[in-house]
């Protein structure tokens, strides 16, 4: 299939592509050479320091020598397997990005990874499944099941919308991932045997298993190549695609099928290597241009090499009784088709314009404002809810306290220990649930707005990875664990990362797209740095970091909270000041400039504020995933506001996190302790799915 694409990709009219032809053939040469090189390198280099001569001898005359056994029974299968899996993931990534027209989409977004993980968890936990071969089938079926579900949710309206599909995938992934973790929490055996499966290493996959999956991978690859032309048409928009003779619907169904086969198969074998699918298509697109035929083949060629850097990341650590959970990311917006009230004109306070929704206009001699009634009411209600939840949570805990104990502690009349439990232990946690939720919501809103991409949340763009790295360095290398130094490290790390991303992404004005791509790359790099640092650190320090890396509110004390409150006041003030600039940048840079926004400065400042929100929370509580992604999108659907609203996102974030906090207490009392992050993911994810389904039902959009 390589030759077809190579000879066909470029229209060779004289004058047509003169500029790009030589460059492209150079790129192909480069990719093929690199593939060959990595093949040879993979044979030559391994755990055993064999010399090139030994390897060569072992390769050409297979005998009973150690070198020969190693080359033929170990390195050869592993190399071929790596190439196959890398190709599968790279191609699946190219497909999903083309189908959804979203550069942030990776195969995992269709629920492939989470579905596979969930099925394996169920299989192991409930059906006593064991061993690789069993995993493969369960993982594969799980991946397929999740994908189908995502597709169904995405097509509930009159036509399939890629945006809804992406959001549904993200939400479903989050929920399934959360449920898997939850199951493994209940039953640690499952966790122990799945953990290794989930780290995404191919070092131990057996040839037999590959043979089981290979047919699926080949089928998926064939489908992908066959679809390339249709994907090119779909990239031009649904109207043109249809008139170019491409059935948009059919392309989507087949595309999703191909992704399931490819990513499902690869995930079943390895337990999910996310980064390849996300990054490879970008690298390849940058080299080959936007033709899907070239991107798909190019991704197949390029992926095996990039993948290798990610293997062997999860050296097992001694962490009995302590488990880290991967943050979940997700969420993607769609034009909110809020019920149109445009026809019924209703104005609450005197005003002459019909904004299509109820508007509150508040004017005093000194100030004036206009806010959509629904946004105001929803935000206020969410904040009230957040505070209410946090308050109720004060009454819950393992230390038995009566209602009266708590109230008298609050009014300062309780006995010393009781008042300490309430004021020193429980109160900072409750306050942090409200505050951190708001900060995460703000950060998410800023980045989604700046990148014009609902998936553009700080955790995707890599700023929390930067914060994490800095904290790890400070903890491990400097040995400091003071709240202020950790907060400072987190913010510093986040900012440096942001600066690096900004510098790389800046080219006469910044585009959301490039910011995202560079961000993903930086994030992936930092991820590797982090795991390297942790594996290199000695056990106790690593355990300490592991604790912190889990993301939990329960360790927040006043001494960690005070610096966060102080800095976050500054951050929130900055955000309020810059919110108008953010809104005007939604109209494009030209318009923003002519509206008096200093685009460069405002963007830099917003970047700093957005990074700071995430970094602060990361510093105080560890990475808490999903809220930054989900809150703005949930808020938008609830308020029907144009774009993402910072205020509503903050309120939504608060409500989500404090609801999760409360629920974790209730669960702990009724059942067993469950980390807050897990609950956030589950309620946020389920809620998002519900909203999406409701939205699809009422959506117009036959055309889109």
């Amino acid at each position, binding site marked *: 299939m390589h030759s077809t694409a190579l000879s066909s990709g470029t229209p060779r009219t004289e004058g047509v592509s003169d500029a790009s032809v030589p460059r492209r053939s150079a790129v192909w040469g480069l990719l093929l050479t690199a593939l060959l090189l990595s093949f040879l390198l993979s044979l030559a280099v391994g755990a055993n320091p064999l010399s090139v001569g030994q390897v060569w001898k072992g390769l050409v005359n297979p005998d009973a020598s150690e070198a020969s056994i190693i080359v033929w029974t170990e390195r050869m299968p592993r190399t071929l397997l790596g190439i196959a899996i890398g190709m599968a993931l790279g191609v699946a990534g190219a497909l999903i990005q083309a189908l959804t027209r979203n550069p942030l989409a990776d195969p995992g977004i269709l629920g492939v990874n989470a579905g596979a993980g969930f099925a394996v968890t169920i299989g192991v936990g409930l059906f006593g499944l064991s061993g690789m071969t069993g995993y493969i089938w369960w993982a594969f079926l799980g991946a397929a099941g999740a994908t189908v579900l995502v597709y169904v949710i995405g097509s509930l309206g009159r036509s399939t919308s890629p945006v809804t599909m992406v959001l549904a995938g993200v939400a479903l992934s989050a929920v399934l991932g959360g449920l898997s973790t939850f199951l493994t929490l209940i039953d640690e055996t499952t966790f122990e045997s799945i953990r290794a499966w989930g780290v995404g290493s191919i070092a131990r996959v057996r040839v037999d298993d590959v043979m089981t999956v290979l047919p699926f991978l080949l089928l998926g690859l064939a489908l992908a190549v066959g679809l390339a032309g249709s994907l090119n048409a779909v990239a031009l928009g649904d109207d043109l695609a249809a008139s170019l003779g491409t059935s948009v619907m059919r392309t989507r169904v087949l595309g999703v099928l191909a992704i399931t086969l490819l990513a499902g198969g690869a995930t079943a074998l390895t337990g999910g290597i996310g980064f390849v699918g996300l990054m490879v298509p970008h690298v390849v697109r940058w080299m080959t241009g936007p033709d899907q035929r070239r991107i798909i083949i190019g991704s197949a060629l390029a992926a095996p090499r990039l993948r290798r850097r990610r293997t062997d990341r999860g050296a097992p650590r001694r962490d009995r009784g302590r488990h880290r959970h991967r943050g979940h990311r997700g969420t993607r917006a769609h034009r909110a088709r809020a019920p149109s009230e445009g026809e019924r004109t209703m104005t609450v306070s005197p005003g002459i314009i019909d904004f299509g929704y109820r508007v509150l206009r508040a004017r005093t001699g000194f100030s004036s404002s206009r806010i959509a009634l629904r946004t105001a009411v929803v935000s206020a209600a969410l904040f009230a809810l957040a505070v209410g939840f946090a308050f109720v949570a004060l009454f819950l805990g393992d230390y038995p306290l009566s209602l009266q104990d708590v109230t008298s502690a609050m009014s300062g009349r309780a006995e010393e220990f009781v008042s300490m439990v309430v004021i020193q232990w429980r109160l900072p946690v409750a306050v942090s649930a409200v505050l951190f939720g708001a900060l995460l919501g703000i950060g998410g809103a800023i980045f989604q707005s700046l990148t014009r991409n609902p998936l553009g949340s700080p955790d995707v763009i890599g700023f929390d990875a930067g914060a994490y790295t800095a904290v790890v360095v400070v903890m491990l290398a400097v040995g400091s664990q003071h709240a202020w130094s950790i907060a400072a490290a987190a913010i510093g790390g986040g900012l440096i990362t942001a600066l690096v991303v900004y510098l790389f992404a800046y080219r006469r004005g910044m585009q959301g797209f490039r910011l995202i791509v560079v961000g993903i790359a930086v994030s992936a790099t930092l991820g590797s740095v982090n795991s390297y640092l942790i594996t290199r650190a000695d056990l*106790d320090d690593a355990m300490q970091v592991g604790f912190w890396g889990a993301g939990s509110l329960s360790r927040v004390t006043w001494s960690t909270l005070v610096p966060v409150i102080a800095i976050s006041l500054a951050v929130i003030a900055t955000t309020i000041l810059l919110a108008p600039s953010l809104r005007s940048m939604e109209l494009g840079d030209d318009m923003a400039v002519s509206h008096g926004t200093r685009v460069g400065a405002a963007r830099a400042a917003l970047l700093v504020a957005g990074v700071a929100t995430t970094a602060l929370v990361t510093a105080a509580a560890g990475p808490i995933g999903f809220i930054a992604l989900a809150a703005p999108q949930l808020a938008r659907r609830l308020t029907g506001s144009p774009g993402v609203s910072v205020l509503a996102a903050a309120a939504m974030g608060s409500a989500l996190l404090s609801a999760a906090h409360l629920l974790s207490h209730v669960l702990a009392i009724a059942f067993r302790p469950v980390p807050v992050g897990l609950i956030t993911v589950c309620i946020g994810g389920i809620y998002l799915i519900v909203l999406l389904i409701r939205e699809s039902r009422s959506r117009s959009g036959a055309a889109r």
Partner: protein
Amino acid sequence: LVLTGCSSDTPEDSAAAADAAKPAPGLLPAAEGSTSYPLELESPWGSTTLEERPERIAAITPSQDDVEALVAIGVTPILVSEDQTDVWVQRELDQEIEGRFSVTDGGFNVEQIAAADPDLIVVLGADVSADYDKLAAIAPVLSTATTSEGESSVANDWATSITALGEALDLSEAADRALETEEEFFADFRAEHPEFDGKTASYVVYYGAESGLQYHSTPDSPAGLTLSRMGFEPSDNASELEYRAVISNEMLSAIDADVVIFSDNSDGHHADLTDSALFQALSAVKNDALVIVENHSVDGYFVIDGTEYDGNLSWGLARSGPLSSTWAAEQMAPALADVLGAE
């Protein structure tokens, strides 16, 4: 649902623990009178004062290392982590442990600890820097962690731990006795098994195709210590390997020794590895000096050569405490003697 050694009991109702707050008789042996209270308890994170001899002791190290130390000197803690309590501890315990607490991602659940109403909190081998202030507000905290050059170390050395416990609980003699008993046990053991003397041994654990084979008997490791007390020498490569290093197939020759103890944690899939050409090339295999321990940790037993034994040998070898190491040595002796004696 199934459970293994690495897994947990369903947590017992902590409220029940609080109800039973009255001191149960015989939680610890009678005072010896060698310690005078109040006693200052130092730690890298602060210090607390023990006003009088404690009775209700919470042992909060998640891995339960401190439980073994307490039980070794005859003390029954009132609160331990929710992990399953091992056979070698269980068989020395003369009464039930009152309560369990959960360890979550957030760290210790201090409210559960407070609710158990302890009068001493023991934490040996865990870093509680973040929670120390809260713990100290509940009860005095005993830790053996040390500070050097601003870095705190919680490395767990059994003699230190047991001695410290003995002092705090006014049971110094009992502590010395426990350590002596262990010494005597191994002296007897070596005398009984001269065939182990000077032989090299490695201990590896296989976690299945997915996560591979790990080397567990570096000289300072728990298994390494236990093996050397049994009379063995470290294998040739032991000092170059890291504790729990993953041994890739290509490097299998690194585990070779006079005897290889191979613990199978892969649900019976060890043949995937042991049948491979590289594994078969090991001298231990060729010499028939391979001891395969099949872990059935779910049901709490293990199998060597078709014989079932109670307990979890992997965990026993992951400790080098006075109860665990003697127990592990006892369990392995027949099989090892079989292999080495037949030479």
